[in-house]
């Protein structure tokens, strides 16, 4: 049981990105997140995990079940790396800005997909992105 509620996926290749989002979807299904929310979460994970392989080469995604003060459960995703960090966070959070040859939708896009989004980064200090998707109140079973 406890094993199902926490999981760390090393991210070193594009296959690991797929593994991370599939693992998260399975956890989200167990928490009875709606299928739309599962998809939004899986897509957000894909974006932040790809940032790891693109900019830091390697890192990890940690998945866990968290609870808020009202007892509501959610899936927390922590994507961390020891890569170069982000020099200008404000710029990186703007739609369309990219330094990696992509569309620049990764971070701002991921922020729009989930309920809570937090990023902790500094040049040379790596990057940690934390996402949470909460179970909807009406999905609560008796």
């Amino acid at each position, binding site marked *: 049981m406890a094993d199902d509620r926490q999981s760390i996926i090393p991210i070193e*290749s*594009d*296959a690991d*990105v*797929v593994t991370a*989002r*599939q693992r998260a*979807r399975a956890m989200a299904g167990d928490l009875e997140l709606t*299928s*739309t929310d*599962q*998809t*939004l979460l*899986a*897509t957000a994970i*894909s*974006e932040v995990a*790809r940032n790891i392989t693109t900019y830091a080469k390697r890192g990890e995604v940690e998945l866990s079940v968290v609870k808020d003060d009202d007892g509501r459960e959610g899936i927390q995703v922590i994507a961390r790396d020891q890569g170069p960090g982000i020099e200008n966070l404000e710029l990186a959070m703007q*739609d369309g800005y990219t330094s990696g040859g*992509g*569309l620049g*939708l*990764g971070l*701002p*896009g*991921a922020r*729009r*997909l989930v309920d809570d989004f937090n990023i902790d980064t500094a040049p040379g200090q790596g990057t940690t992105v934390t996402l949470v998707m909460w179970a909807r109140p009406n999905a609560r079973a008796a």
Partner: protein
Amino acid sequence: MAVPILKQGPFLIATIQAALTDTDVLQLQDDVMAQVTRHRSRGIIVDVTALDVMDSFVSRSLQGISRMTRLRGAETVIVGIQPEVAFAMVQLGMSFEDVLTALDLEEGLALLQRPRKEAGDGGG
């Protein structure tokens, strides 16, 4: 996992079977371009029904296939985008404005079989 591409008359049909890694997606781009050239195809259908996630990389790559094949005189139609996936794509900021889409394979083929306008796409 490689995406099988079937030739159906003047069209190609690429049916994605399972979750794609970025490498798979790039491979699909190359394969489609090679086959379009080899068969002088007029249209391509990419069936994404099996995809439960279309992130910015996959979306951008499919957009790339659409643009590249158009330069070769072939139209690409993306079919089978799941409702949840469509929702996520819009939230993400992928609007697919210049990409043809259809509900399913049948609708996609119907779209490709329409008489062509000779005046070009008039995109802007």
